[in-house]
């Protein structure tokens, strides 16, 4: 289960947003995509999820070519995403936001659900149990019957991640999950994401918060003006002079970031141990 970009290109009119990007994302690892604003990070996510078409090249999951499929087909192939600007179903309850994700699996028996109430009840109960478990994981169980649009911003971010996870996707794409979160919420998010790391899942995170990226990611792809500038471990990325010039700033900043990341790792370590 490996997500592969092969010579990927995206053009908006004359503006080349992604140019000849080839790389692989392995399961069991958390991959970060970083780069300055406009580097093409969201475009990569949008193409992978099928929100945008691919101008040239291809995206595939193992042997299955995803580029060219419709967005809902890509979702059903096991690709789930969140959006840089939160997109929940605002006038549906938190629970319903998750329940509706079972549509592809369950729609075939809608008639039975309509005609035979006991069947509907049983199915709804099973669906809701699965959703409540996930809501509890994200500490959202208290909001289950509130409208998604009425939640505080930070909770909405969490809910969007929960929605992406309901159907246990093979690939999880997170576009700036920490944007707009306060310090406390970012720490909570980091802990949750590290728990979500799984051998059966490719995780890709686009993020500006370098502390979070350095603490969480196993591999990092650095984008710059639509091109893949560098890829490697957090340490390699921090050591790369190209990256420093293009993105990270001066050497002093790097030391600060490294220190902060070390700090964060230590915190996470304590958290995980307390949990088990």
């Amino acid at each position, binding site marked *: 289960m490996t997500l592969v970009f092969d010579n990927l290109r995206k053009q908006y009119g004359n503006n080349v947003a992604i140019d000849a990007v080839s790389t692989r994302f392995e399961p069991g690892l958390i991959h970060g995509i970083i780069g300055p604003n406009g580097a093409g990070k969201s475009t990569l996510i949008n193409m992978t999820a099928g929100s945008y078409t691919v101008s040239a090249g291809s995206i595939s999951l193992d042997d299955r070519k995803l580029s060219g499929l419709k967005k809902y087909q890509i979702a059903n192939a096991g690709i789930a995403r969140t959006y840089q600007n939160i997109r929940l179903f605002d006038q549906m309850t938190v629970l319903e936001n998750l329940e509706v994700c*079972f*549509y592809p699996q369950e*729609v075939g028996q809608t008639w039975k659900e309509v005609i035979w109430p006991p069947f509907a009840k049983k199915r709804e109960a099973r669906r809701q149990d699965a959703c409540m478990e996930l809501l509890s994981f994200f500490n959202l169980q208290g909001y289950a019957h509130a409208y998604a649009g*009425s939640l505080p911003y930070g909770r909405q971010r969490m809910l969007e991640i929960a929605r992406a996870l309901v159907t246990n996707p093979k690939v999880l794409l997170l576009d700036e999950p920490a944007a707009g979160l306060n310090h406390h919420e970012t720490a909570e998010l980091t802990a949750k994401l590290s728990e979500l790391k799984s051998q059966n899942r490719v995780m890709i995170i686009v993020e500006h918060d370098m502390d979070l990226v350095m603490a969480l990611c196993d591999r990092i792809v650095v984008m710059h003006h639509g091109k893949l500038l560098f890829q490697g471990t957090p340490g390699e990325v921090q050591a790369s002079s190209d990256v420093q010039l293009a993105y990270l700033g001066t050497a002093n900043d790097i030391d600060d970031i490294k220190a902060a990341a070390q700090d964060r790792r230590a915190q996470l370590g304590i958290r995980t141990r307390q949990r088990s």
Partner: protein
Amino acid sequence: MSSTDTTMQSIPRTGRLVPIVVFIVAIALIALTPFLGNYYIRVVNGLLIYILLGIGLNIVIGYAGLLDLGFVAFYAVGAYTYGLLASAQLGIHLPFLLIVLIAALLGMLVGILLGVPVLKLRGDYLAIVTLGFGEIIRILVNNVDWLTGGPKGIARLDKASIFGIEIARPVDFYWLLLVTVFIVATIVWRMEKSILGKAWAAIREDQDAARGIGINTTNAKLAAFATSATIGSIAGVIFAASQRFVSPESFSLQESVLIVLMIVIGGIGNILGIIAGAAILILLPEVLREFAEWRILFLGLLMIALIILRPAGIVPRSFGPERLIRGLFGK
């Protein structure tokens, strides 16, 4: 769809008084109607037909969030199915229930045929194209004289009967319509609660995000369109059978607009709201008969007042059938 709903922390579950009062009043009205004069029973029958139409159109507008202004076309399909299959026009005289079945299937088919090309359109474009479709059907019916009788319509339709029981007096149609409304409302409400209904809501909220969680939005929207068309067509059959006459006049754009207004005024996306909206828009003109020339003005003022005072409609989405049932049974 309104901003008032968003501010609510959660859907209220308590409060039994309103549901119980609503229930008792409804039962009383249902039981008393047969004792009214024929004129009034006909008015109530008209109301029930509009409730049926409202429930049908609400699937597309209220649940899936698609503005369909050509709904009356499906109503016409049903009415003319009865007109052609139960009259001397073609010399065919099929039984009423068989025609209901044929019209339901035909309505569904026309709904799908129309839906396939137009459902790719969004918002205003969809509204304009469906509006055009409604007009095309009316003009078509008006002009294929050899089949539909043109503007004169088809008269002397057969009396309807179900299992040998003749359905002819207004009170017969009253019971037929009541049972139909009850069955249709129950099925539609259960569809709303089903996984398909949740997908409709997701499409209404954010079509693109709905695709992102794996919903084939084209199919889900087609299902909404087809179900709505089926209901419109069935309403058309009962309408034609009760009038024993069909003509293109009954299927003007105004009818589509009236049904949309019922939904918006009553409470979009809520079956109870549709009933309230239909009651106001169908019964008030009867009450205000003497001021008939002021009707449109009155309607306009009512709309303005409601948009200001109750933007989510008279009965908002949050007070749906589920709330009523919970209240009644104290669950």
